[in-house]
């Protein structure tokens, strides 16, 4: 992003497109000069003639490329999915705040993901795996609609090898599925944690965040300020100008997208943050 010209995208060539699950693919982009991001930040990805969409960065800051996991769900994202390797994609960013990282060194980490919500968490998860000795237990609770919708299945083995406890769940199983069936909050009963030294990072659909956060505080006993979620809004400009992403007085693109539970509870009085 050139100084001052906040709406000018930087054009990058797509290096690789990796299909993940139906309608979801990961786009690999080279890092432009001086690009430094933090886990939890997002990019405004633009495709000329179609428009711009906010996409969270799925690659950890220490990784050599930018990885963007995009679901084909709307006008712009479906056009992005029709791109080929070598085509140009514009990015603006990194924008927004980030997951607290330094603050929780030495703590136990609990990730709670739902559906495509694993994509922003992956950035932080990998950053922690690169610095595995800085953290205690790392637990990943992840749920999706069906077994075919579980994101990044090829990575789970690698996660386990590096000491992540993974628990999966699906809303509807199929004939091969032997694991848990139910929403992600049903996994909470199956783990034992020390709530006073655990921090939870939550991302997923709004309704999932709402109930997961409630149960983390009420059933698991984690302090509300240690429950952290990234919220989803359609940020059209990403720099706090257009007003589309506002929840009560918070601009998700500048004050967020990462919020702590007490902040979200406060917003709930005036608006619907989920």
């Amino acid at each position, binding site marked *: 992003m050139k100084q001052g010209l906040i709406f000018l995208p930087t054009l990058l060539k797509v290096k690789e497109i990796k299909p993940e699950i139906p309608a979801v693919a990961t786009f690999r982009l080279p890092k432009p000069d001086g690009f430094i991001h933090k886990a939890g930040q997002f990019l405004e990805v633009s495709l*000329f003639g179609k428009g711009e969409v906010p996409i969270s960065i799925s690659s950890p800051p220490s990784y050599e490329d930018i990885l963007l996991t995009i679901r084909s769900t709307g006008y712009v994202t479906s056009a992005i999915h029709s791109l080929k390797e070598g085509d140009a994609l514009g990015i603006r960013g990194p924008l927004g705040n980030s997951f607290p990282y330094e603050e929780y060194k030495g703590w136990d980490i609990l990730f709670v993901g739902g559906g495509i919500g694993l994509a922003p968490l992956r950035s932080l998860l990998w950053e922690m795996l690169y610095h595995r000795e800085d953290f205690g237990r790392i637990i990943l609770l992840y749920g999706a609609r069906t077994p075919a919708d579980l994101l990044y299945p090829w990575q789970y083995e690698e996660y386990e090898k590096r000491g992540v406890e993974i628990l999966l769940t699906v809303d509807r199983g199929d004939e091969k599925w032997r694991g848990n069936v139910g929403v992600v909050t049903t996994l909470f009963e199956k783990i034992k944690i020390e709530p006073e030294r655990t921090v939870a990072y939550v991302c997923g659909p709004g309704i999932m965040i709402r109930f997961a956060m409630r149960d983390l505080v009420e059933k698991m006993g984690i302090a509300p300020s240690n429950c952290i979620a990234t919220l989803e809004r359609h940020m059209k400009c990403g720099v706090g100008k257009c007003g589309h992403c506002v929840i009560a007085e918070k601009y998700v693109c500048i004050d967020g997208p990462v919020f702590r539970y007490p902040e979200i509870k406060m917003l709930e009085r005036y608006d619907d943050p989920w």
Partner: protein
Amino acid sequence: MAILAYRKIRKENLMELLQKIASEEELIAPVEMFGGEALFQPVKDVRDITFNYVNTLFPPKQFLLPRFEKILTYKKEGEEFKVEEIIEAPRRTIFGIRPCDVEGIRYTEHFYSGKMFNREDLADPHFMARRNNLTIISVACLNPAPTCFCVCCDGGPFLEKGFDLQLTDLEEVWLCEVGSQKGMALVERFSPLFEEAEEKEIQRRKKLEEEVLERFGPYPAFSGATLRNITRGDIPRQVWESLGERCIVCGGWQFLCPLCFCYTVVDIGNEEEGYRARVWDSCHYEGYSRLAGGPNPRKGRDRRRERCIFHKFSWQYVERMGRHGCVGCGRCVITCMGYVHMPQTVWEIRSAFREEKYKKEAKVR
């Protein structure tokens, strides 16, 4: 900023000054259009300017934030894209702007300059370039319209800051209050046209200000109590539902409000060549906060209305923006067809707390 200096200018000298400005740069002034409505228009000949108006139908925000604005162009040349950000910022002077609109510009500038977030690195280059090239010569209001309520909203009828020059009609001469260095430079450049103001004229302006306060109409928007209720978030759901029911989602309020500044972004063209533009948007439209894939956190009209009023009248915003979001220009009163304009909304929120059926619910929350 306090007033830097007082000057006075004769009526014929003012026309000469404006003609000189019009010959050098773009002069925007109220012009009486067919049908008797005054609108801000670019003026070449100062004889077109009308002085017979209370306020223009459209606020002058379109000169800072155009309804439709190209922000960048793109063109595919071979394998590469050529992308350019377009910043269009002609030198402009705007004459005849009323204090409420001056206050609106100050509010919008606070937002677009990134000062709201203490992020001045994210200042909007398009808006700020136009703002820096804009000179404001405002005219204080002596005859408010029945719909005006700026006196309740710190938006007039006289201002202390925000303008470069503020003129007051003292019948035979105009009193000029210089409010900024830009205004001072203008006065010094055309110093033969100006004269030093005398003490009695300054006193007369003060007296006029007191007299004007008596002439305001029947639309009080005493927002203090409303601000408190909205900040606490304890307004009964039924109030929003009753307001939302009557709203016809025309977006007229947001387009006529001098303080509304939301926009949406569109790409016009094909994959090879075209431009990206931004156009005004309204938080009352259903698609405003819809997310990809369909979920809409503000599906009901009551939710959207609540969001709009929260932006205008909550302490959370007052804290960040330096003032609440209404200057009392009265344009929403003129345009609103569902009778849910700002003073009416404030009135209904206030009266809701007097009604017994709501009292109980308010306590429960």
